[in-house]
């Protein structure tokens, strides 16, 4: 399975997401939060986690349902998504058109010593997303597919799910805020003008 993991997350994620300014972003713990905090300079349109594992997709779903006028992007990892993979089914029955999910799948639990995850041992999260009735899904494991991934995430009429298979190169290092209350207040102030 290792031959389809040649992409480096540090190069692929920024190209797929593009300019993040017009997005509302929720990130699962560990690598995905670092990928996106780095890309947004830990800005006020992103809420990252360093715990509450398994909650990112549901949190993004709540935000997408609350704000149908905004594009909401969930960025998570294979381990974080596996912890609450049933949330894809909850997304699938609602199919909010403004919700996109990017799963950065390195097949490992990078924060805890790079133990293999279930996706390294044959589990296919794109098929689970398809089976969960998410309308637009794609697996991306080659550089030439990246423009297509970007288009699906940005322009799909209906929820989209991109499984980005990457190697085990680490995410970018960034010192992000771990103060969830401060981040919540900043996010709401930027979006709603209130704390």
């Amino acid at each position, binding site marked *: 399975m290792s031959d389809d993991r040649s992409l480096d997350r540090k190069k692929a994620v920024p190209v797929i997401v593009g300019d993040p300014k017009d997005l509302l972003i929720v990130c699962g713990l560990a690598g995905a939060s670092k990928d996106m905090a780095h890309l947004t300079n830990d800005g006020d349109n992103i809420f990252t986690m360093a715990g509450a594992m398994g909650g990112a997709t549901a949190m993004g779903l*709540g935000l997408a349902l609350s704000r149908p006028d905004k594009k909401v992007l969930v960025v998570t990892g294979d381990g974080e998504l596996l912890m609450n993979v*049933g949330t894809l089914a909850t997304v699938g029955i609602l199919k909010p058109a403004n919700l996109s999910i990017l799963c950065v799948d390195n097949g490992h639990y990078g924060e805890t010593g790079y133990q293999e995850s279930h996706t390294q041992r044959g589990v296919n999260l794109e098929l689970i997303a398809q089976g969960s009735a998410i309308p637009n899904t794609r697996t991306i494991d080659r550089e030439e597919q990246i423009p297509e991934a970007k288009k699906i995430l940005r322009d799909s009429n209906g929820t989209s799910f991109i499984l980005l298979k990457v190697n085990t190169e680490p995410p970018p290092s960034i010192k992000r805020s771990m103060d969830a209350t401060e981040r919540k207040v900043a996010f709401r102030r930027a979006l709603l003008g209130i704390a």
Partner: protein
Amino acid sequence: MMSEYGGQETWQEDLYSLLRSNGVKLFCYVPDGGHKTLINRSIEDPEVISVPLTTEEEGVAMCAGAHLGGTKSVLLMQSSGVGNCVNMFALIKNGQFPFVTVVTMRGEFGEMNPWQVPMGQGVQPVVEAMGMHCLRAETPEEVSPTVQAALDMAYKSNQSVAVLLTQKLIGAKPF
């Protein structure tokens, strides 16, 4: 024939009206007999978003996400669901998110299913251990004022509150 949860219709209707008049727009739940009226009203109401969950912890994170977007929400669950939520309550506590869950209790007054007892006994200590307030409603008359108090504590004081609809209130399911 009397329903398993007979007599709940009036206070459940009042509770739905109370939640709506307080601006609650997102209703998340795992199906539950004790919340039947509330769940059905949310499904029928075109003004609200009614979301069945695969597990209660999804609802905790969804309510936090909805707050980021400016939407008031409620999580409806049974006492057993509280156990499924514990680590996700860390998101609520760390972010000081306003949060209201209405919990129908099993495993206490007159319970006839032993499988409901452990989590029924665990609800109050568990939610309090995670930094949430725990308010109990024992009679139909207590339901609306208790939920109103929870909504005020949440949306005016950024608190997280579990309202327990006790088994004395909802009745024991026959086994």
